[in-house]
């Protein structure tokens, strides 16, 4: 009985089609696309600040149709390969939240913040491709959006469970659905043909030890997720900071001195992100009045 329910959830989540984006971002991009002076690079910069559009862009460039399955892990490369026309089509075909809740903005900010921390850490640790790590950080919670959109009723129950019993979202997910958002994000990434270098860190961001090939990347995302939650920038459906995996922490091998410097750098970069967030919200308000 339990198994059939779980397989129903899995089936529903696998069929997820069009994940909605924040209306402010789509409004901004639509305006940019209409301006003949806008460059692909400028559009790319905005798209790289949205977890949903970033995931869609990667899905598109890695689809068998476009010829590069499981190959492209960088957003810059995806943008170069797809080109302006396809990006415009992507924006036209994107759906937006019909009913936007503050929590959608929170998750967006959390994702963006996590990507910022990932990029700081990846550069500091000298990983071979820092952009890949920050991309994985940006889309690490994509499973949460899928659960919310595809399992609406269950999602309300999950929220209730978090609220009433004061448990973390991930515990509620495991209890009610038998799967959690990390696993869901992992399959989505896999079914979209994203490179294994992105799939594994997404699937293992709460338990980086389960990662076989990408343990360092998974650990960076794991720690960045925790750090950005700790800093209180955005959140993901509950207010708690997830527990830190000791092995991941050892793998990162950071000293208190390192942490101070990292925090300073993150704070500085978050200014830029916060500015963008305000801009997007202003965009939304001006869009609503016109």
């Amino acid at each position: 009985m339990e198994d059939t329910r779980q397989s129903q959830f899995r089936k529903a989540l696998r069929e997820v089609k069009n994940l909605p984006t924040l209306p402010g971002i789509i409004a901004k991009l639509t305006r940019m696309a209409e301006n003949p002076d806008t460059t692909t690079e400028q559009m790319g910069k905005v798209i790289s600040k949205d977890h949903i559009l970033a995931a869609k862009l990667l899905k598109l460039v890695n689809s068998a149709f476009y010829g590069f399955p499981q190959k492209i892990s960088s957003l810059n490369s995806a943008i170069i390969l797809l080109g302006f026309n396809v990006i415009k089509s992507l924006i036209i075909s994107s759906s937006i939240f019909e009913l936007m809740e503050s929590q959608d903005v929170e998750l967006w900010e959390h994702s963006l913040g996590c990507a910022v921390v990932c990029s700081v850490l990846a550069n500091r640790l000298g990983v071979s491709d820092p952009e890949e790590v920050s991309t994985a950080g940006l889309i690490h919670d994509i499973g949460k959006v899928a659960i919310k959109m595809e399992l609406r009723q269950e999602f309300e129950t999950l929220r209730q469970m978090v609220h009433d019993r004061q448990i973390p979202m991930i515990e509620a997910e495991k209890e009610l659905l038998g799967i959690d958002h990390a696993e869901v994000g992992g399959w989505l990434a896999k079914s979209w043909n994203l490179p294994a270098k992105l799939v594994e860190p997404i699937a293992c961001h709460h338990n980086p030890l389960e990662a076989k090939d990408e343990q360092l990347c998974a650990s960076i995302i794991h720690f960045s997720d925790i750090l950005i939650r700790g800093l209180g920038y955005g959140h993901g459906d509950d207010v708690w900071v997830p527990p830190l995996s000791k092995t991941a922490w050892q793998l990162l091998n950071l000293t208190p001195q390192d942490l101070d410097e990292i925090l300073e750098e993150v704070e500085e970069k978050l200014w830029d992100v916060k500015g963008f967030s305000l801009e997007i919200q202003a965009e939304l308000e001006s869009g609503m009045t016109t």
Partner: protein
Amino acid sequence: MKRILVAGEKIISAPEHRIVLEAKGYQLLLMHDLHSAVSLILEDPPDMLIMEKTFGEDKAPLALLNAVKGCLQKTNIPVILIVDDKQALAGLDWQQYAVDDFLVRPFAPEVLRARIRLAEARMIRVFDNNPLSRLPGNTSILRAIQKAIDSDESHGVCYIDIDNFKPYNDRYGFSQGDDVILMVARIAVNVIDELAREGSFVGHVGGDDFVFIVKEEKVKPVCERILANFEIVRNMFIPAEDLKAGCYVEKDRQGRETVFGLLSLSIAVVMTGAHHFIHYGEVSTLASEVKHFVKKKEGSNYMIDRRSQV
């Protein structure tokens, strides 16, 4: 089975239209709004588009045409435009409405079917495109070079060549090699589309050789952007350990072990305005001289023939 995207409310409103087409094995995908039509083109492109001139909101038909034109999986998706009255045709800007054919309502189902078959046949006739990149092939390239020579304006005829492509193929296999060719094609098309859309041309000679033609003043920005974009994307096509080493050892054509550099691009440019070319053959002869020099340089480079630079 041919899949036809039908954009507009009234095109297939009469059941006989539908029956005639479906009986002949066409699958009709009816879309009423821009959003879902573009989604389809992006995710699962049709073989043909039939669109009402009055489809969706005011700019929707042009946005849809753009999406079809930008569709990378299938170039040459034929488009048939449906208009309500003959008057609408007179003032229509066909540059903007880059369609292949049109029909004025009312028309019989047989006429629509004939137009669809005609569009299919025409597509096969003009198809000298490369099967991998879907870019125009040699017949079109020669014609485009001749057109550039005959033009009053000076154009740069630019030959792209992938350096160290053969050892890459030997090391990673042909299928990976094909991906690299496709990657270069996409980069070139997208850069030219963005920086020099008007009067430009991109063709695929075959293998790892491409030709593009842009107006003289666009040569530098286009070449520079192509090389810069290649440097970014290239890394996705080379395994981390080789990327780190910066080179690899493979056997050369004589079977001796040789150190090869990673992939790079060379672009040899000939400006039509600096010479009195009469025949396209002269352009390619000069270009191969330039190519000889640019290929000797390390890494990705472009070089404009010396006589063009005075």
